[in-house]
């Protein structure tokens, strides 16, 4: 079947308004879960691959998908339900993150997560890529904040998991399987979150040093203390290392003063910061022409790997929990150093993900290594799950770990 007849076929099942043609691809923009299901069912039955896209901010993550159909979820937008007294909200997947947060703010609440590019990035895309920022230290990642989900499988099945209550152990947590699955098991249509009150007393501070060792000790002392920290982030820039701390305790508990004393004890100086420091990850990822990696490690390994990245000429933003975003220059030597870094992360039991490659790519071999990496031990089981959920490989085929 040619493109045209598929366009007609899709229009017949999903409605003419939500199917368009663009540069040889079919762009499907469903406005309801039912339209979404009809599109998936048609594509699966006709062995047409679908690439799922929200705002497309993280489309470069994972392996490229060559698909006939691009499914835009941005038409599925809006906060469906905000039960503020129950601290829960149900949101359509195509809703931009910041738009959702603004709606929840009306009752002084939030989904306690600070993902990348919230003004444009959609709820569905953020969940599918399991993005998280500094707030994860205190509130956990999406797996801890999502209590229910509506998903559409490749065959058009509309399934719900979890519910609208915070505590619920009935059935399998399919929503955990969907979180971070890069859309390879189903299309996320709606997400129900548990909410937190907006932080009333957040205050940010930064300690800078040319030697990371001093900051390492301070970082460990903060983790072991009773300070209520919402964020703890180590940054490496050409002018040195910076430890960012966000405190959130009641002013009466005088935690800023405690932190100041701890800092002075290390012969360092504490400075007040603006909220902008928590956008450092965005700034790093937007640097053009860089090789950018996400690396995971144990919390105590963060300062040592930070030093390594700096010595190899890279810049980084790392959350104290053990997630580091590192940017290396694009030249051949730096790429070799980045590959060494990836190797050492792997030796320690962590993982490296390639988030952005410099253009033009200078060494195809390096990219291949960085992209593939080591497959997880349970990869055969993951493939089997994919096979059960999406036997025709309709949804984002090949995009996920090891070509799932």
């Amino acid at each position: 079947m040619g493109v045209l007849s598929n366009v007609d076929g899709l229009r017949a099942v999903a409605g003419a308004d939500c199917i368009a043609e663009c540069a040889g691809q079919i762009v499907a923009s469903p406005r309801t879960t039912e339209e979404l299901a009809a599109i998936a069912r048609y594509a699966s039955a006709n062995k047409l691959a679908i690439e799922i896209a929200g705002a497309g901010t993280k489309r470069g993550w994972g392996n490229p998908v060559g698909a006939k159909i691009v499914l835009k979820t941005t038409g599925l937008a809006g906060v469906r339900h905000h039960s503020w007294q129950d601290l829960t909200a149900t949101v359509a997947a195509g809703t931009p993150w910041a738009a959702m947060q603004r709606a929840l703010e009306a009752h002084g609440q939030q989904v306690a997560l600070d993902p990348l590019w919230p003004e444009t990035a959609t709820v569905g895309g953020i969940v599918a890529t399991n993005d998280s920022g500094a707030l994860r230290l205190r509130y956990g990642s999406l797996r801890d904040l999502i209590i229910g989900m509506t998903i559409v499988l490749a065959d058009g099945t509309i399934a719900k998991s979890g519910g609208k209550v915070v505590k619920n152990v009935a059935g399998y947590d399919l929503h955990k399987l969907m979180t971070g699955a890069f859309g390879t098991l189903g299309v996320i249509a709606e997400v129900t979150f548990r909410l937190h009150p907006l932080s009333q007393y957040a205050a940010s501070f930064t300690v800078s040093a040319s030697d990371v060792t001093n900051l390492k000790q301070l970082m460990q002392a903060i983790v072991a203390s009773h300070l209520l920290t919402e964020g703890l982030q180590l940054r490496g820039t050409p002018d040195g290392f910076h430890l960012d701390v966000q405190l959130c305790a009641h002013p009466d508990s005088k935690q800023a003063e405690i932190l100041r004393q701890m800092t002075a004890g290390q012969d360092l100086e504490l400075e007040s910061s603006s909220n902008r420091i928590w956008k450092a990850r965005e700034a790093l990822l937007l640097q053009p022409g860089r090789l950018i990696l996400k690396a995971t490690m144990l919390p105590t390994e963060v300062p040592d790997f930070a030093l390594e990245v700096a010595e190899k000429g890279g810049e980084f933003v790392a959350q104290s929990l053990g997630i580091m975003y590192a940017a290396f220059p694009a030249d051949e030597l730096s790429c070799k150093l980045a590959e060494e870094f990836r190797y050492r992360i792997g030796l320690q039991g962590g993982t490296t993900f390639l988030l952005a490659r410099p253009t033009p790519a200078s060494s195809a071999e390096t990219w291949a290594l960085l992209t593939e990496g080591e497959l997880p031990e349970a990869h055969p089981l993951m493939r089997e799950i994919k096979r059960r959920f999406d036997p025709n490989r309709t949804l984002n085929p090949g995009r996920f770990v090891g070509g799932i």
Partner: protein
Amino acid sequence: MLDRSILEALRDAVNAGNAGEPSGLITETNQLQTYECDGLTNFRTVPDAVLLPRSAEQVQAIVRICAQHRIPFVARGSGTGLSGGALPAKGGIVISFARMNRILEIDIPNQRVVVEPGVINAHVTEAVAAHGYFYAPDPSSQSVCSIGGNVAENAGGAHCLKYGFTTTHVLGMDVVLPSGELVRFGSAAPDAPGYDLTGVFVGSEGTLGVATKIILRIVKRPETVQVLLAAFDSIPAAAQTVSDIIAAGMLPAALEMMDRLAAMASEAAVHPNYPVCEALLLVELDGPEAEVAAQMVEATELCRKNSAWEVRVAQTAEERGLIWKGRKAAFAAVGRISPNYIVQDGVIPRTALPRVLEDVTRMAGEVGLRVANVFHAGDGNLHPLVLYDRAIAGQEKIALDLSERILHLCVDHGGSITGEHGVGKEKQQAMGYMFSEPDMDTMQLVRQAFDPQNIANPDKLFPRPRLCGEKTGPYTPHPLETAGIAEFF
């Protein structure tokens, strides 16, 4: 009964490398009877054999034999579950983790503890308490229940409003799949590549395999803890206070409520000095001292605003302990005022609390039974205790029927049939009330990927009549695959 050659193979598997140790195979009928049920005692099945492995390799060898002969198996920790999750299958075996109870690693700087599944929940906290840490999930049975069982059921507790559930605190694990393969899920580092298998495994009630090693996250003990007790003349007034506390932006470590019957039973049993009232509210706040002090003042005012006639802040650790002792003893205490009772575990949106409790009282009155209510008010997890007397002909059936209708009521209000006890054997049918066929068919896809032979704790969790995979149909290979041109994936 299992074939003699299979029993011998199981004996070899469980005793390999254990020279001089007691055998890990139990086949004596009187000993097997210990394993015929868990905390839900109205379902009983004597297993064909009980295995007590000491290592992951032995578990693997046992499961391989089960896979080869399609023998159903169920893992068992301390057997404290309340939904029949550890109930053996007919003709099946029990794998008991009583001998795999070592804490393998304590890593304070990284806030991790690695344990075998038989480790008792409270022992994790004991092992790290000296460093100022604790393991947050605290089911009422925490002094006896095992981490493996907690993982299977995704156990909660009174403090999960603030600290989350078992799933929040499990970072990774080693699992023996129903095929006998041993694999690692997740990793010590965050965001392990691939699907979140740890997330789907926790709370899967033993239907996806058997965990043999678990990486837990521990939490820094808060600087201070304070407990407030308030007495109200009505449930709606106490419920409104809960909503007001939440609306004020506080996230208490625990928010518990008891009705008159439950509070009176507790008082009679452990004498926590509870006031006699229609609704008793416990509020626990923790964090930095000054913050907790400020919030306690605010919470007290909110109680008063909603006409609490007594508000008491525990002044000492002893007083605090006594208040909690009364709450934690509530289930057992109810046993003193009624020969038999059924514990239910439904969840509702917190805002539906007054209406649901009113309906429960009315429904109980209609069939002439009493219901005592003890619940986690903060997260809407009800524990209605349906009181009855088995000796009175027909009353058990009425009680079971009432408790099922209470679950339906929870679902009708947008809630869940279970907040922490699990579906197990007990609530299989209620699953069909909460989830649609497509929802459960989708869950079955996961089940089939893990356990195509349906031998891991079969006939639990999903409603009875439908067989595994009945609706979804077999996988049809792609023509290119059949022709050997392309590999799937």
